[in-house]
């Protein structure tokens, strides 16, 4: 069971790193994140999160939206997406 987020973590507002773009690729029928000399093929879960990253929604707000969409508890989703966002941040795809 992943641990609950701190207040500061829930309030963090992720945004795309400079030069990072999420786009749908028709040829591969998949979402891709394109950036400075790198690209990521995010899995389905990451895609759901990345589609909500807009520089205004907080981690809590993203989790709330997904909770509604997938009828799951927001706290569990928050705990799931935080490590994912940290990983994306370490790779420069998002800023936290």
């Amino acid at each position, binding site marked *: 069971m992943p641990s609950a987020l701190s207040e500061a973590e829930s309030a963090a507002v992720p945004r795309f*790193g*400079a*030069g990072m*773009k999420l*786009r749908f*690729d*028709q*040829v*591969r*029928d998949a979402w*891709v994140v*394109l*950036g*400075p*000399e790198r*690209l990521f093929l995010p899995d*389905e*879960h990451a*895609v*759901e999160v990345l589609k909500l990253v807009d520089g205004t929604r907080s981690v809590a707000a993203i989790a709330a939206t997904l909770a509604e969409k*997938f009828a799951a508890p927001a706290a569990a989703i928050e705990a799931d997406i935080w490590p994912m966002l*940290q990983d994306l*941040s*370490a*790779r*420069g795809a998002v*800023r*936290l």
Partner: protein
Amino acid sequence: MSKIFPPPAPPVPPPHPPPMGLIAELTHRCPLQCPYCSNPLALDPVASELPSEVWLRVIDEAAAMGVLQIHFTGGEPLARRDLAGLVYRAAKGGIYTNIITSGVTLDDRAMAALKDAGIDHIQLSFQDIDPTENDRIGGYKGAFAKKRAAADRIRGAGLPLTLNFVIQRHNAGRVAEMLAFAELLQAERVEIAHVQYYGWGLKNRAALLPTRAQLEDSTNVVEAARERLRGKMVIDYVVPDYHAARPKSCMGGWAQRFINISPAGKALPCHAAESLPGFDFPNVRDVSLAQVWESEAFRRYRGTGWMPEPCRSCDRRELDWGGCRCQAFAILGDAGLTDPACELSPQHYLMAEAAAESAAPAPAFVYRRLGVLVS
């Protein structure tokens, strides 16, 4: 969460997944003369360069095939007057556009034109953090100041900035200063890239290759900085193969992810492949990019079917794809052998011997020039 995108019906497997990236070497012209330039010793003369119409066609074909990123490089891509037009076409086709430049000719006008064309990212290369050394290595007085100004222009245009520092024995001790400079400019990304020993780099190997101790120092500096700058600045680090135990996954495997087009239009699995004999590399003047991707030259070392031992039965064969074909040819005279950078190669000692030479005094550089005798 799979409700949103129900899995599509299993598609008929295509011949090979489409390329991710197109490397467009627009020209071999460059105001600099770096002695480790990755261009071949025999540079394409300007008269042989592809005309704009062909590049535009290739870009359209790339977009249709599923190329996701295009890297405009050279030589100095800004030497081409049609650069902004090519960027525009690629951006319109949904391709992520990147320019790799030395920056000395990136003036206000060029920057504005590229910005209007929709450029996504510019990588600015430096030869050293010490201005005098920077200018000596590039063979261009005042280059450092111009690069510094180019960095400000890129920032001013609101674009993400990548600084690229090329590391060799004369500057390997200054990696910490390079990273501090990148931090000062608030670069999103920095490449600390040791020279790769092909083309001009191989010719100048004795003048460039760092000692193992120098390499280890630079690795330590990079690792400490990565820890400190996590989430703020991405640091990509490229090491030379000579002190390594295993080869790099060169280009993500021969013809697996990239197509490289030379200034004259030759389609190659990597920029160095032009040096390989016994290949009939297709030219984009004559064939489409889709034909290039399925050509004999591209299929020859694709995947694992071509592999000899020790690669054939090695559990890393789909991780490094047997290393670099061009290095196997350059060192062993046979592109179809295991990369000698691998400790498991029976000829690994050749790399180790060359690495040992790095302790000897450095000879003078042979500067990259059109018309230098190729030996």
